[in-house]
């Protein structure tokens, strides 16, 4: 069969080749034609070039999306394919084509590092490297012996808590809170589970700690998003569900579910009896919980008060407090008093979740499309970044905290490597000028699920970069690249991987976890000021 040019058949075959739909027969005919006819060949190349141009040049579509209104953004988002929707006000030509490949570096880095990760020297500022929980609160607590005594505010390693009388509250590093009423013997096993040999405990499990489990001699109770009590004595265990659902398992039997208001008693022989939940039996623990809630509410209030002052700082370019997050509003408000320099951020994807305190909103970043986009115009001689984050895991080779788009001169990338090192990169004037400042590994399993304060100072004056965790400097580095530094368009929790869509998972570097505060200052904050940021925002009070 001979194909001629020009012809309908030629048109259709070229289109089929572009769409990846051409049959072997079509390919053969086209082959013969292209070999025989230089005109057909030139036309073929032009059409393919047009097709390839459309597929490789996001700027062609940038002008359309740059004009998108908030409503359009929201609708874009609702049928999101995981791709980035541009919100920048830049003209298309200004926009760097930032592709999936940016994240390649991360991939390689981590492939190389994978074998080394957990053998790395642990930072010496982690005295509680084995700890799974903290003793957050106690009322008239009498411990079984002097050796069993635990201090409020102290980290708890896996092991037994033996309480003679009184009430204590343990906050697991998974975020689960457990109130214990003495006499009780509770063994802490990991951030996600415990064993109650005797006594009365009540667990309150926020969404991020779902799956938290407590075992007794008779049963294992697994939270499915709840508040439940467990009453364990010498002859039986009873689980009472006050909120949500739990699954419980007796011996090797199948899991059974209990809803709010239900309870189940299991005796030594494994016989199960369903009854109604009895909150009165846990009255003391509810009372403890109420007091603890009041303490947290006061911390939350103190933080707000401190912020009212902080927002007035003229060096504060942007502060997102994540306070007025509602499901219908995809805007993250810049609450800095002089906030006009940095427009509000646009939330793309993400879910609203609980922050450092009950009732404090936060944004959860889970999927590769989750991000907050905003733009910081201007040039700076120094910058300080501050964020409160709850890291769920370091799933990606690089996990973005705040990343500028692209690699333009002066741009900054702030992220966590998957080995737990904080990483701040500064791009110099030329492609080959780049400095990457990595802290020791400071974010690991023991930090997952906890609220952490992370900060980084880029000081062009004294030419240094400093990484901070919970108010303490963890590493200082000499900065050779001179100011000015620039930020421009950037993202919280992601790195603009969607403009050139990709399908390979390793090309993605989104953050897994939650964030409930973020700030940028246009000066280098001192060690003391960073410590104050931490102490003002620390979730639990000092005792």
């Amino acid at each position, binding site marked *: 069969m001979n194909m001629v040019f020009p012809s309908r058949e030629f048109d259709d075959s070229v289109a089929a080749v572009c769409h990846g739909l051409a049959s072997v027969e079509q390919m053969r005919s086209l*082959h013969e034609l292209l070999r025989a006819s230089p005109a057909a060949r030139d036309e073929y190349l032009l059409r393919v070039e047009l097709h390839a141009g459309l*597929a490789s040049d996001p*700027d062609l*579509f940038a002008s359309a999306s740059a004009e998108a209104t908030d409503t359009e953004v929201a609708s874009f988002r609702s049928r999101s394919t995981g791709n980035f929707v541009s919100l920048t006000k830049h003209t*298309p030509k200004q926009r760097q084509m930032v592709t999936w490949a940016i994240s390649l*570096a991360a991939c390689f880095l981590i492939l*190389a590092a994978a074998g080394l990760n957990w053998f790395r020297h642990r930072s010496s500022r982690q005295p509680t490297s084995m700890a799974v929980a903290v003793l957050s609160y106690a009322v008239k607590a009498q411990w079984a012996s002097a050796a069993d005594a635990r201090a409020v505010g102290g980290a708890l390693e896996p092991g037994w808590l033996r309480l003679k009388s009184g009430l204590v509250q343990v906050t697991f590093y998974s975020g689960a809170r457990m109130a214990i009423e003495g006499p009780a013997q509770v063994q802490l096993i990991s951030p996600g589970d415990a064993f109650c040999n005797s006594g009365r405990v009540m667990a309150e499990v926020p969404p991020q700690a779902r799956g938290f489990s407590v075992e007794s001699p008779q049963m294992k109770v697994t939270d499915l998003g709840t508040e439940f009590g467990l009453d364990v004595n010498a002859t039986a265990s009873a689980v009472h569900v006050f909120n949500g659902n739990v699954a419980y398992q007796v011996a090797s039997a199948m899991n059974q579910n209990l809803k709010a208001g239900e309870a189940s008693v299991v005796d030594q022989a494994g016989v199960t009896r369903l009854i109604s939940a009895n909150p009165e039996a846990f009255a003391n623990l509810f009372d403890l919980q109420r007091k603890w809630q009041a303490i947290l509410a006061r911390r939350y209030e103190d933080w707000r008060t401190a912020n009212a002052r902080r927002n007035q700082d003229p060096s504060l370019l942007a502060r997102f407090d994540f306070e007025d997050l509602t499901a219908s509003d995809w805007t993250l408000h810049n609450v800095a008093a002089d906030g006009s320099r940095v427009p509000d951020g646009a939330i793309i994807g993400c879910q609203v979740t609980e922050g450092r305190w009950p009732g404090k909103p936060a944004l959860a970043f889970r999927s590769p499309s989750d991000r907050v986009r905003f733009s910081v115009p201007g040039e700076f001689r120094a910058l300080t970044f501050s964020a409160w984050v709850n890291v769920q895991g370091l799933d990606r080779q690089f996990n973005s905290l705040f990343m500028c788009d692209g690699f333009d001169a002066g741009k900054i990338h702030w992220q966590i490597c998957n080995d737990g090192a904080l990483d701040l990169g500064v791009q110099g004037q030329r492609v080959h000028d780049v400095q990457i400042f990595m802290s020791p590994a400071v974010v690991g399993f023991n930090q997952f699920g906890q609220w952490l304060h992370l900060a980084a100072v880029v000081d062009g004056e004294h030419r240094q970069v400093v990484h901070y965790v919970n108010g303490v400097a963890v590493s200082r580095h000499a900065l050779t690249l001179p100011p000015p530094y620039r930020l421009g368009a950037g993202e919280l929790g992601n790195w603009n991987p969607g403009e050139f869509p990709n399908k390979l998972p390793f*090309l993605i570097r989104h953050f897994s976890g939650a964030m409930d505060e973020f700030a940028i200052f246009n000066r280098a904050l001192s060690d003391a000021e960073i410590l104050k940021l931490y102490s003002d925002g620390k979730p639990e009070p000092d005792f």
Partner: protein
Amino acid sequence: MSMSSDFRPLSGDVAAAQQRFLALFLRSEREIFRYVAALVPSVIETEEIVQQTAITLWEKFDAYDPAKPFTPWACRFALNKTRQWIERRQRWQALLTEGLAEELARRREELRPEWERRFAQLEGCVAKLPDDERAVVEGYYYRRSRIEALAGESGRTVEATYKMLQRIRRVLKHCIENAEQMGEAT
């Protein structure tokens, strides 16, 4: 040298090298993509070849001479990857056998200077498309939506959506050619 056996120490130097590599690669990526697409135009396959090329480029980055331009260096590897891709696929062999791949790559280089002004008009031409057509073209090329999803969104059949893309490309080709001529007239 395979990546998995290449246990380089994790250090700022390596990260910096990667960032340099990426900055260079990103600037060349569109070029590499189009270079590959001239031979294997199916977008999903082009992407795959470019990604494989990127990995090879990084593996060979030590051998790259920064005094020389990056794109031609990168395109040599891209051509190899594309050849391997074609060799393993009967359909592409049927099209590109008997030296046609090399001939297309060579001819494209000759034509590119002529095309430059024409393709500069493309952005304006895309912007002039009616909304429904721009939505389809944006969905297919920019958002990389599945064709079934695009068909569903616009209430067309899959077949009709492919035809529509073909028609839009024809419109765009006329547009860039006319715009170029108009440009020459003034």
